[in-house]
């Protein structure tokens, strides 16, 4: 523990030395602008304001309200409505945060200015970019934006979630649902497998002769043994998972006939409903502003989340490369607090506080069957790493009461983190 503290502090000092100089005008009345009102951006806006009420905080978000990817799988299963996973910006506004519904189209880093689709220009002292993911429609032949209307990705919640829900409702009993899962890294590593679980929950009640086939790009996945144990317990024989090296890798799709082609064309999977989750990269404005590297994601200082490519701009959440942290709403929320503290400290000329980050991902295998993976993270040398001996998976030998408690806690987590993010 002593050693970790020492490393944390020395990393903190190193990171402080690397921070770009603040503008002379950057006092506690500095102008901070956040692009993107999801888990990372909205949390950062809220906590900048709470940590220093003198700061001018402006949040730019295209949509009037945010529909969360967490719990969108419950919408697919008919367990929640979209309204119940939609969050407005009213409470952020009530906290004296300026919320502008517009789209950032360009960043002029030299003059510290953001251009908006409306033609408006906004000056900043510090800019936080939290754009989430962009879907790579060009990556798998046949899967373009038109194909997404036939084979929904539903990996950005809202209209796509409802489209997939309608397709599941329209499917006949005995139908086949294919979920195609991408390679790492991608948003919400356990998400495709929770989705398979909750679609199975719906089908078991309404269309019990149906099957779910998961065609995976990967050879293993998050919480794999816990998911497979739960599938055997709740939905025996209903869900089949195919590893990438065993023929799961989808090489091409034909959207009109809902066909997925694998194994160099030797196998064609024709499905009744296809949920195709394409590979991903940092959100569009991060690409456009050249905050990304060759990986398609944004390299950042792991203490302040300041871009390693463009000074004065911080990148948070799914778009950022954050060591061992997964791309999750919880990670984005955690990073946003560390980033807000770093910005407030640096604006005052104070040392950046030693970082601590956390992530807990609950997944529902069924309405009363929850599993989790968690970690506490610290900064070691230059990367965010899980604190050894902490975190980990739900036990494999837990009894039904334990799984039910974790399912209840998943609902409690959703309630708490959405309030922590949007007020």
């Amino acid at each position, binding site marked *: *523990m002593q050693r*970790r*503290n020492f490393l944390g502090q020395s990393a903190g000092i190193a990171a402080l030395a690397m921070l770009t100089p603040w503008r002379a005008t950057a006092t*506690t009345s500095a102008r901070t602008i956040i692009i993107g009102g999801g888990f990372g951006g909205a949390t950062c806006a*809220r*906590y900048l304001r*709470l*940590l*220093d*009420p*003198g700061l001018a905080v402006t949040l730019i978000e295209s949509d009037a309200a945010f529909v969360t990817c967490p719990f969108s799988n419950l919408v697919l299963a008919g367990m929640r409505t979209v309204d119940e996973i939609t969050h407005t910006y*009213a*409470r952020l*506004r*009530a*906290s004296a945060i300026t919320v502008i519904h517009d789209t950032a189209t360009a960043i002029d880093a030299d003059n510290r200015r953001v251009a908006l689709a409306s033609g408006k220009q906004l000056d900043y002292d510090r800019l936080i970019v939290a754009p989430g993911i962009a879907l790579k429609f060009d990556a798998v032949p046949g899967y373009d934006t038109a194909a997404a209307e036939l084979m929904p990705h539903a990996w950005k919640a809202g209209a796509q979630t409802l489209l997939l829900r309608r397709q599941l409702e329209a499917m006949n009993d005995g139908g086949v649902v294919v979920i195609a899962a991408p390679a790492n890294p991608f948003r919400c590593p356990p998400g495709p497998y929770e989705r398979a679980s909750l679609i199975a929950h719906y089908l078991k009640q309404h269309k019990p002769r149906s099957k779910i086939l998961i065609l995976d790009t990967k050879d293993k996945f998050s919480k794999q043994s816990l998911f497979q144990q739960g599938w055997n317990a709740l939905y025996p024989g209903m869900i089949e998972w195919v590893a990438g090296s065993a023929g799961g890798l989808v090489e091409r799709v034909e959207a009109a006939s809902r066909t997925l082609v694998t194994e160099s064309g030797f196998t064609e999977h024709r499905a009744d409903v296809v949920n195709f989750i394409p590979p991903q990269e940092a959100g569009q404005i991060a690409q456009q502003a050249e905050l990304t590297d060759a990986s398609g994601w944004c390299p950042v200082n792991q203490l302040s989340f300041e871009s390693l490519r463009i000074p004065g701009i911080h990148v948070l959440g799914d778009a950022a490369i954050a060591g061992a942290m997964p791309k999750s709403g*919880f990670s984005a*929320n*955690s990073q946003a*607090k*560390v980033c807000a*503290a770093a910005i*407030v*400290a640096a604006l*005052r000329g*104070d*040392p950046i*506080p*030693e*970082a*601590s*980050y*956390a992530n*807990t991902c609950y997944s529902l295998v069924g309405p009363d069957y929850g599993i*989790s993976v*968690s*970690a*506490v993270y610290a900064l070691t040398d230059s990367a965010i790493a899980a*604190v050894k*001996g*902490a*975190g*980990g998976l*739900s036990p494999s030998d837990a009894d039904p009461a*334990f799984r039910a*408690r*974790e399912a*209840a*806690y998943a*609902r*409690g*987590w959703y*309630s*708490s*983190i959405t*309030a*922590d993010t949007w*007020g």
Partner: protein
Amino acid sequence: MHNLVQCLLFIGLLSIGTGKAVQADDLRGFVLASSCVSCHGDASPNGAGIPAIVGRDAAFIADALKNFRSGARVSTIMQRLARGYDDAEVELIAAWLAKTQSTIVRP
């Protein structure tokens, strides 16, 4: 260590939700404890069995974390998380949570 916690409370260091800026010495406590709020929520119980911890007595929080960490107190997830913090960090978390108020502003 509890004396230190009480001392910090006595001299009235400011936390969030007061309308005042958080000072440099408190930012580490904020960074550590803000992870707890993501699940435990702001102030009131969230109805799913995750207890409220904001504004609770510092000694209560510190003891709970240490008992989760040792396994003396049975839990689903807290013993996994509590093992991520050493004694000094536990005291900072407890001190921060004890002096924090609700931060939600309703329109």
